[in-house]
């Protein structure tokens, strides 16, 4: 079974694939023969692109051209293995794949790493890039340079990688490869004439690209020591094999059976398996400088592996670890609660199990139990960004089989106490009494927005309204501009992206990066229902626009709470001072008009339901507040 014997050459009659030949020995175990690769013949590279520009398709085509995947086997987007990724067309996990390619009789081992395209996962892009010497930058010839093209290219240039620009989708009638090549030159400074024009769909230009990868990209740097140093650039949890660690060996050699040590955490393990994805997992006996592959060492949970850590030999350790990179920081937070609709998958315990399982797979989100007066027990979770949050929610529901209620996202604030101590606050309810702190700082991002020229004015106005600070404006081409702004993260986690898209009929693209924390005129806004403060509804807002936001919130709340037999005042207040108010009028009538003989059963059931609905409401200041009210109020819209 593929499950236990990961390495499956299940059809011995088939031709061996990839760099490795494999045969099934008499015992059934797989014996791998490796063509020892000299350092000069190895090329480690990533493919980076704006979403949908064809990165995954190109990766597939490369696999096909190097015969790593037979045409018959070729299925689209071989590297995206999760359902969810397939459906959303985004790549979440970076996978390292090894193939071989011959140029002029010389054999090259190509290790390539598929990276995610979305802004939230830039940390994954950085990880992948750490293991590479070069990168293929894919730009859609019908779309041109977009925000994530720029962001990803900057990341690569920042790490001194050699870039090969590829203008993709030239088979499409709308392709404008020359113009797009000019944009690449204009904005990224890569000569237009260096661009390879290709179609990942038809295969045109693929051979040229492969040759350029072999010829133009630098090989791995020579070893600096003979002691083992391998960088952990990714890891994932496999239900059947436990933690799978992706490594790039820089120095020394690693063999199956070696006792290894993680230099950062100090933990030691026995290396039980080494291998490469070709793209089928294929065991190897050892790995040397420049090589990329996976490592299995009976590591129990992902939490035991720190991506960025250096693997060395326990008995003969290297003196100094490789340069790692910064751990991703969770900047967006929200709560998940079990849904209150009765049924399977709606208990706190089920939610907790699903969280734990998911955390095995994704070490970049955090969770801790919380209790909300309104929503009961749940978890406060931290994410890298908004898309990351959406993905986690979907995976919880799909893979975890739970139904969750999600509160509105908030950002991480830095709170400077009068004592000088600095706290991180992820939840407005956690904000201590104003007299105990001096300053509240919020995260600021730098965002690059690429738009057609006619929308520049609108976008400028939008950024201004979101408390943005204008930085620069660059022409990409005759028709498109790149704008750089600094904006508080809190202002973009709401509906900024949707607004941007709708204002530009979908043409604008953006990316952002957190650049620091700024002190701002921020205040905690309390919401009172019938005089009673409701912590779950409080929020932190910019003082000057707090009343507008508060009013919007009260209006929504008013729609969600049914009328009662008495009038209900709704108030928003900052430090006891009311800044907005609304009133829910007293209910006038609650009586079914018609109830005749044939109606009795149905009407009785309706009243019963009304009663059950009541049981699910939260009573606040003798007001029955439905769970939907919390949700709708916390909804991101205006």
């Amino acid at each position, binding site marked *: 079974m593929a499950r236990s014997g990961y390495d499956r050459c299940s059809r011995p009659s088939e031709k061996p694939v990839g760099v490795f030949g494999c045969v099934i020995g008499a015992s059934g175990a797989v014996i791998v023969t490796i063509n020892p690769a000299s350092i000069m013949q190895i090329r480690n590279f990533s493919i980076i692109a704006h979403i949908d520009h064809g990165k995954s398709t190109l990766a597939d085509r490369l696999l096909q051209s190097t015969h790593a995947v037979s045409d018959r086997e070729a299925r689209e987007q071989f590297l995206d293995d999760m359902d969810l990724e397939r459906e959303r067309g985004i790549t979440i996990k970076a996978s390292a794949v090894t193939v071989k390619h011959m140029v002029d009789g010389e054999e090259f081992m190509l290790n390539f790493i598929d990276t995610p395209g979305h802004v939230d996962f830039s940390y994954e892009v950085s990880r992948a890039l750490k293991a590479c010497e070069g990168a293929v930058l894919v730009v859609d010839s019908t779309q041109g340079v977009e925000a994530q093209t720029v962001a990803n290219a900057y990341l690569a240039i920042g790490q001194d990688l050699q870039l090969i620009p590829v203008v993709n989708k030239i088979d499409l009638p709308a392709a404008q490869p020359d113009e797009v090549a000019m944009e690449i030159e204009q904005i990224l400074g890569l000569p237009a004439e260096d661009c390879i024009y290709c179609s990942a769909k038809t295969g045109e230009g693929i051979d040229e690209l492969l040759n350029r990868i072999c010829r133009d990209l630098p090989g791995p740097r020579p070893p600096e020591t003979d002691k083992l140093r391998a960088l952990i650039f990714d890891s994932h949890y496999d239900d059947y094999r436990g933690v799978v660690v992706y490594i790039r060996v820089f120095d020394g050699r690693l063999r199956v059976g070696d006792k290894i040590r993680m230099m950062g955490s100090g933990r030691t393990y026995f290396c039980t398996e080494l291998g490469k994805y070709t793209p089928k997992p294929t065991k190897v006996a050892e790995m040397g400088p420049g090589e990329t592959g996976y490592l299995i060492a009976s590591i129990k949970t992902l939490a035991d592996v720190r991506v960025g850590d250096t693997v060395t030999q326990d008995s003969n350790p290297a003196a100094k670890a490789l340069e790692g990179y910064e751990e991703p920081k969770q900047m967006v937070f929200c709560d998940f609660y079990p849904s209150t609709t009765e049924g399977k998958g709606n208990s706190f315990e089920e939610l907790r199990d699903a969280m734990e399982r998911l955390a095995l797979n994704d070490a970049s989100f955090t969770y801790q139990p919380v209790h909300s007066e309104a929503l009961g027990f749940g978890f406060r979770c931290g994410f890298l960004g908004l898309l990351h949050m959406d993905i986690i929610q979907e995976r919880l529901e799909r893979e975890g089989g739970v139904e969750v209620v999600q509160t509105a996202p908030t950002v991480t604030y830095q709170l400077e106490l009068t004592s000088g101590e600095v706290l991180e606050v992820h939840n407005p309810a956690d904000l201590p009494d104003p007299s105990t702190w001096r300053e509240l700082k919020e995260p600021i991002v730098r965002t690059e927005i690429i738009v057609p020229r006619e929308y520049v004015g609108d976008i400028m106005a939008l950024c201004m309204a979101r408390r943005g600070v204008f930085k620069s404006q660059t022409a990409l081409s005759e028709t498109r501009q790149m704008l750089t702004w600094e904006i508080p993260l809190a202002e973009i986690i709401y509906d900024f992206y949707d607004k941007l898209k709708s204002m530009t009929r979908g043409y604008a693209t953006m990316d952002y990066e957190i650049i620091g924390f700024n002190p701002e005129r921020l205040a905690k806004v309390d919401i009172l229902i019938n005089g009673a403060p409701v912590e779950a509804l409080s929020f932190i807002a910019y003082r000057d626009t707090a009343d507008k936001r508060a009013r919007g919130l009260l209006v929504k709340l008013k729609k969600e709470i049914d*009328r009662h*037999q008495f009038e209900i005042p709704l108030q928003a207040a900052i430090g006891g001072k009311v800044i907005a108010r609304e009133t829910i*009028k007293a*209910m*006038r*009538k*609650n*009586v*079914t*008009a*018609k*109830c*005749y*003989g*044939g109606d*009795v*059963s149905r*009407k*009785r059931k309706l*009243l*019963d339901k*009304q*009663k059950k609905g*009541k049981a699910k409401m939260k009573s606040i200041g003798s007001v029955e507040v439905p769970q939907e009210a919390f949700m709708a109020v916390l909804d991101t819209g205006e």
Partner: protein
Amino acid sequence: MSQTERQPTELTLRGQRATGEGALRGVRGVGSLYVHVPFCFHKCHYCDFYSFVDSRDRQGVFLERLKAELGVLAGHAGALRTVFVGGGTPSLLRAELWEDLLGWLRERFAFGEGCEFTVECNPETVTPELMGVLAAGGVNRVSVGAQSFDRRHLATLERWHEPENVGRALAMARDAGIERRSLDLIFAIPGQTLGEWERDLETALGLPVDHLSCYALTYEPNTAMTKRLERGEFAGADEDLEADMYERTVEMLGSAGFERYEVSNFARSGMACAHNMVYWRGEEWLAAGPSGSAHAGGQRWKNVPHLTEWMDGVARSGGYSPIVDYEGQDALRALCERIMLGLRLGEGLDAEDLQRRAASLGVWEAVRMRIEAHRRSGMLTDERERVRLSGRGFLFADGIASDLMIAAQEKTPG
């Protein structure tokens, strides 16, 4: 709109439904009878009764089957105190079929002294001839569907009749000697103002009626009206306006001598509909015709709401209709129903009866506490022997009923 028969909703083993035979076993001496005639000449958009436009003219066969079913039911009835023929549009049945039906009823059933015998009529279908036939056959009460006297609002409801024909129909009934006459009216129609509703009430009070049913328009599931509302064709009436209209109704009718004896029903003294009171007091009645609901022997059931299936079933089983939605004896259900229905009445609930039922289930204390709370807040009157809504309480009948029902369903400690 739904010009065809609705599809059956429930199926039992081997495609055969249970029939009313089992439910009727042991049932004796029931004094009330409901008969359902499913035909209409047009489907009104707010209507969720089992009714449809019969393009195949099955009135003759329908009547044969109805007689078969009535023949069976007669064995379970005592002297009838109330009979109600509803629909659909019973007045759509041809006069000679009516003669046949009324004759059959007289032949098979015993009619008690002063039995109230109501027939629902659509104003368009009333003729002096038909009224004569009804009166001669013992019908002494008609209920005419007027809904509104404003053409614009009738159009919104997709209700097809001429407003003037309402008065004409009532006059014909009176002239034929049918002594008791009622009108159905609807308010809170989209676009209707308070003034317009007051005019409708005035018009109604000017007609020869002793009973008025005034219903706030209800958007029942699966009706055209509800779909149109959801599509945004119009907005539902504002809650305040609807409440104003209702309060105005109680006032205007009250000062004209029409007492509210049920949430939506008003009558001159002694003219309350005795048949409907049977429903609301939780008494027993039998039912004939597709979709007819019965309550007897502590059980509730409903004839299958499908003409062909009902006809075939009755033919096959010698008069018993296939049934759906059967509910057996259940003291808790009965208590909840008493609360829900009794509270809607002007007379309210008999406190002693309520206490006896609740106590036998061990929930009287819980129910009593809620009753006291509602008395304190003024929703229920202070009368000890009755549990009765106050004038203000009537506006919140559902909330109070549901609250008492919760108490009744609370598990007794220990």
